[in-house]
């Protein structure tokens, strides 16, 4: 309990983990009956890889959502980041670090633009990040007619395919990022201020929080996370891919994972641990349905229902707590 009591808002384990456990248990049973095996090594590795990709984005998305904002441009940032990384590396290990640095720098630049539009120009986050996404889309569409560049073999072997037992390195990266973010939220001024800005911007402002700076930082961090996801995807794919972000629906799925994880869409409540739960839940549904070879469209229907139901449950809980 001592570790839990350190959670930022002192909330119990988000219900998403209960749902995750249930889903896995039921899924395991059903798959077993179907004659399959949910938890074999290959499936677990696949599940964790899918989770890692989405998770890296969703952790960043959690930050902006906690701050009462939103980022719809992450999908394009991911694509851009894969390309910047892969093209800079160009297949050689020597350019690995500069490439990673450059990809992150470009991503951070996009985040800065998002943040400034939301704060300085007071553009609603939905529209601002949608617009920035369109800018990036145009750039990608007009400059790339397909995958480009080549990821350094060292990165492919390490981040892309290395694993410790059934756990891929990338998933460990996600765990590390989650830990760092959790720590930042609960133990740094930035984290405290971010949650305050999301909870009530006016209260935060009058308490001396520099809302704009906090939100811009959150947007930069969010884009950095998306950039990191891009680097990971580049290491998985072996090259930069101009459509990988949009094809993966990383924008909407990351938001879905965040809210399934119990973070309020309006901001000010929630945390990054729940988000990882949300990501794992979505990835588990994927894995189970894969094992059962259920039609992808049916899965999409289920996904829609899960998202709505999860948030409805949180809403009910919040209502029962009453008072506020």
């Amino acid at each position, binding site marked *: 309990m001592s570790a839990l009591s350190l959670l930022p808002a002192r909330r119990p384990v988000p219900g998403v983990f209960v749902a995750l456990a249930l889903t896995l248990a039921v899924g395991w049973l059903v798959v077993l009956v179907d004659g399959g095996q949910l938890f074999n090594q290959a499936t677990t590795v696949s599940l964790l890889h899918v989770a890692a990709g989405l998770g890296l984005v969703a952790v960043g998305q959690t930050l902006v959502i906690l701050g009462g904002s939103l980022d719809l441009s992450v999908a394009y940032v991911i694509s851009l980041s894969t390309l910047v990384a892969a093209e800079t590396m160009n297949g050689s290990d020597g350019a690995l670090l500069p490439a990673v640095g450059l990809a992150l720098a470009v991503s951070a630049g996009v985040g800065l633009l998002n943040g400034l*539009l939301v704060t300085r*120009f*007071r*553009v*609603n986050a*939905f*529209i*601002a990040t*949608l*617009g*920035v*996404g*369109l*800018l990036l*889309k*145009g*750039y990608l*569409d*007009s400059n790339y007619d397909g995958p480009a560049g080549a990821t350094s073999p060292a990165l492919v072997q390490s981040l892309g395919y290395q694993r410790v037992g059934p756990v891929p390195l990338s998933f460990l990266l996600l765990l590390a990022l989650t830990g760092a973010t959790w720590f930042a939220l609960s133990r740094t001024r930035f984290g405290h201020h971010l949650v305050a800005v999301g909870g009530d911007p006016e209260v935060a402002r009058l308490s001396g929080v520099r809302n704009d700076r906090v939100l811009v930082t959150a947007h930069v961090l969010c884009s950095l996370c998306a950039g990191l996801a891009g680097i990971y995807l580049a290491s998985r794919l072996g090259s930069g891919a101009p459509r990988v972000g949009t094809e993966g629906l990383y924008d*909407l799925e990351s*938001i*879905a994972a965040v*809210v399934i994880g119990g973070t309020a*869409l*309006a901001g000010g409540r929630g945390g990054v641990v729940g988000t990882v739960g949300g990501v794992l839940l979505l990835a588990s549904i994927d894995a189970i349905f894969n094992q059962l070879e259920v*039609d992808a*469209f*049916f*899965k*999409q*229907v*289920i*996904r*829609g*229902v899960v*998202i*709505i139901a999860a*948030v*409805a449950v949180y*809403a*009910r809980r*919040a*209502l029962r707590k009453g008072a506020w």
Partner: protein
Amino acid sequence: MPTVARRALSPIRLRVRPGGVLPILALLAVLLVLVGLRQPDFLDPPSLMSFLGRSAPVILLAAGQYFVIVSGEFDLSVGSLVTAQVVVAARLIDSDPARTWPVVLLLLVFGALVGLVNGLVTTRLRVPSFITTLGMFLILVGAVYLWSDGAPKGGLSEEFRRFGRRASEDVPLLGRVPYALLVLVVVAALAVLLMRSDFGRTLVAVGDNPRTAQLSGVRVWRTRTVAFVLSGLAAAVAAILLGGYSGVSFQAGAGLEFGAITAVVLGGVALGGGRGSVVGAMLGALTLELLFALMNFYGVSGALRSTVQGAIILLAVAVSATRSSSR
């Protein structure tokens, strides 16, 4: 003592205030001038009429989205709803003209029903509408693919397609007037009337401050649900016109939700509710459509279009946002 008995506000001041239609009219005028410079015959009645006709579905969607946004919510499901409607229509009509009208009716009911579900889940289960309609989006796309085995089946009858494709010929002065434009004019008039009615004013009040509205006897959940139903109905009408215009495809409604929201915001309506006019929202959609036509006329590279679109939206919204932030 000056009291409210004095009604001395100049009409100009009325329109420039935040939420007014003047900025979008100005933008529209600039685009019209640009089009006129490049393609003078675009402004001739026949081509203008056909442009308005083909823009009708998007404008209708913007109007539907306006009801939801002004009441303080979002509807991300309209695009998928349009797709679903078109695919459903094709399969049910199966090129049989006799089924046209029943199916049209069914589509309207279906649209209203989807709106009703969106509304009830949002208001009664207190799921933020962004999530509700995102979920509905996934459900509708998944369900329609599932139902049609991944490829639209059947076909639309010529009678059905008439609404979106054909025109009333030989109208004095104007020449050809597309049926879609007639539908648009009727629906737009209804929308304007609705927004002037008690319901319309109440809807805006709900978006502005739902607590106050509730304590003034407004059934907030019902009002918002009706807004979602209106959006669903608008999507149904848009689907009928769009299916008529371009035929069956899974791409029929793709991305329309973002287009509609963008249009509404461009038209001066505040996300979060409580401000803006339905006329502004529809003008916003018209402006976006004109922007696309403009890019066709100026030969902007296909791939660069989204950049131009994104830049214009950001610029327009940022300018109006910084201008109206009167704190």
